[in-house]
């Protein structure tokens, strides 16, 4: 049983069915309408049903699929965390802070990173990005509102 549970398509099928069910649940209150005046709910619901059906097919055919490859949490956690940190920091603190922050957080994803290298490199990269995006291209990305006011 455990073997079967770890198969790619078994989990894939379950995930697809879950997404379909969730979408249908979200769309439950939208009017479906008739063919001539299709309501806003017609397509989301219809597609969710189709998707659920396809997910069932995938689940039923999962016996011969590959078993799942190794997972790791560190990479996704650090990289996605870096993006979220960047998003949180960019408006209030500006690129000058968000840049090094994102690079430092991302560097934690790789076991090969060295701290000193990362810090120096993060600072240099941020300078480069500021020069390129802020000054050369004039994009309205905040630089350091707490320090220089923009």
């Amino acid at each position, binding site marked *: 049983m455990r073997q079967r549970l770890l198969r*790619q*398509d078994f*989990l*894939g099928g379950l995930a697809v069915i879950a*997404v379909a069910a969730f*979408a249908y649940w*979200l*769309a439950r209150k*939208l009017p479906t309408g*008739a*063919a*001539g*005046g*299709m*309501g*806003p*709910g017609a*397509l*989301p619901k219809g*597609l*969710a049903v189709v*998707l659920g059906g*396809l997910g069932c*097919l*995938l689940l039923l055919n999962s016996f011969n*699929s*590959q078993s799942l*490859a190794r*997972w*790791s949490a560190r*990479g*996704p956690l650090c*990289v*996605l965390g*870096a*993006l*979220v940190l*960047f*998003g949180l920091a*960019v408006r209030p603190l500006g*690129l000058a802070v*968000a*840049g090094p922050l*994102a*690079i430092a957080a*991302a*560097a934690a*994803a*790789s076991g*090969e990173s060295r701290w000193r*290298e*990362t810090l120096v*490199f*993060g600072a240099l*990269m*941020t300078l480069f*990005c500021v020069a390129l995006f802020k000054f050369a*291209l004039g*994009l309205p*990305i905040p630089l350091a509102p707490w320090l220089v006011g923009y």
Partner: protein
Amino acid sequence: VELLSNLALGFGTALSPANLFLGFVGCLVGTLIGVLPGVGPIATIAMLMPLTLKVDPTGALIMLAGIYYGAQYGGSTTAILVNMPGEVTAVVTTLDGYQMARQGRAGVALGVAALGSFFAGCVATLVIAALAAPLARIALLFGPAEYFGLMVFGLGLAVVLARGSVLKALIMVTLGLLLSTVGTDLETGQERLTLGIAELADGVDFAVLAMGVFGIAEILRNLENPESRNVAIAQLGRLLPTREELRRCFGPVARATGIGAVLGILPGNGAVLGPFASYALEKKLSKQPEGFGKGAIEGVAAPESANNAGAQTSFIPLLTLGLPPNAVMALMVGAMTIHGLIPGPQVMTKHPQLFWGMIASMWIGNLLLLVINLPLIGLWVRLLRVPYRIMFTTILLFCAIGIYSINNNPYDVYFTAFFGLAGYLFIKLGLEPAPMLLGFVLGRLMEEKLRQALALSEGSLMTFVERPFAAALLVLAAVVMVVAVLPAVSRSRQKAFQE
């Protein structure tokens, strides 16, 4: 004659110093980012889109097209030198290209790739210029029912042409369609599937989705495989192929250009198939098929030419019908919309300068690539020696800045992280994201046309049967799908992708 005067107008526009400069910069930075391992054209364009925000529409599109070609060529460079394809179409190039590089013939591989691409680009530019006007005229006759049929056909093709199982591709297309319904309903203004998040009221941004499932997920995947990058070059060797090598490549390049150009026009991302098909064909036609996979120069020249031809002719459905056939073209739609242009047959008549200027810039872009890349290959090689642990943080920062700058909205960065996670799961579950992107791209337009068609026919589904062209397209879509699941065909389809 009309063709010539149109092309003259185009070259006049594209050769203006400002546009030439933009095209040059586009090719250069496109190559620069595209060379980074694991960054394909889709991620590159999404990342560099903000560069074009402040330029006039014509210049912006010329620059974006340059970025696209640059990214393509940069991807081939990485495929040949370090065996890391940035996207599916470059996979074939790694087979013989990397072997050539290991034998000390990296320079020739890169040179022949550039020359083959240039030849393919020249032909494809002519094909576009010749086909665009007649196709756009046909497109003006299309009603909503025909558009709907065409899009269904395109999605059917996309399912068939995707790698891996048909069922999984179908799942991904449906998922993409479902994602496209997120946001405010066009007719009633009701919010759909937004979870109450105000930032989702306009729907999911395509650049965000593409950057997540292609750019970010690719970083995550590369991080899992410990550094095995081996810049395979003690020396580059000479760049220009010998006369003998050119003679060997001419046939393959010409055939591959034809294959790539035809497949590129298809509405369902047919261009993906070009490199695979031309590689398989050349292997079959070759007198020494055993040399393929061991550094045969034809094995680099053919897929590279097919790739470039397809990359270019895939502009045809976008420029004439307003239907993006793949993710890159969908990003182009996004860029056009930012500049207030609605892609479709009317672009040619309303903005002839922009239209023909872009076509002319394709040819110029190919020439620029040749000029830029042959001397700069040494620089790209040095760039590829930078360890990935440093490189990926930079890639990530560029992604974040690029995505933020498109709408100046931090939420886009969060959504990108979300779709990056989704893309990582897709990789783990063996689900190919390309069909999902196409489903997403066409989804909104499909719903709009479907509802229009049904409103016109007062709810009768017969409209799809009575209108001959719409019916033919829908039947064609069904046939394609049925054929794909026939046991004999599905077996040979698997074989085609394994090669």
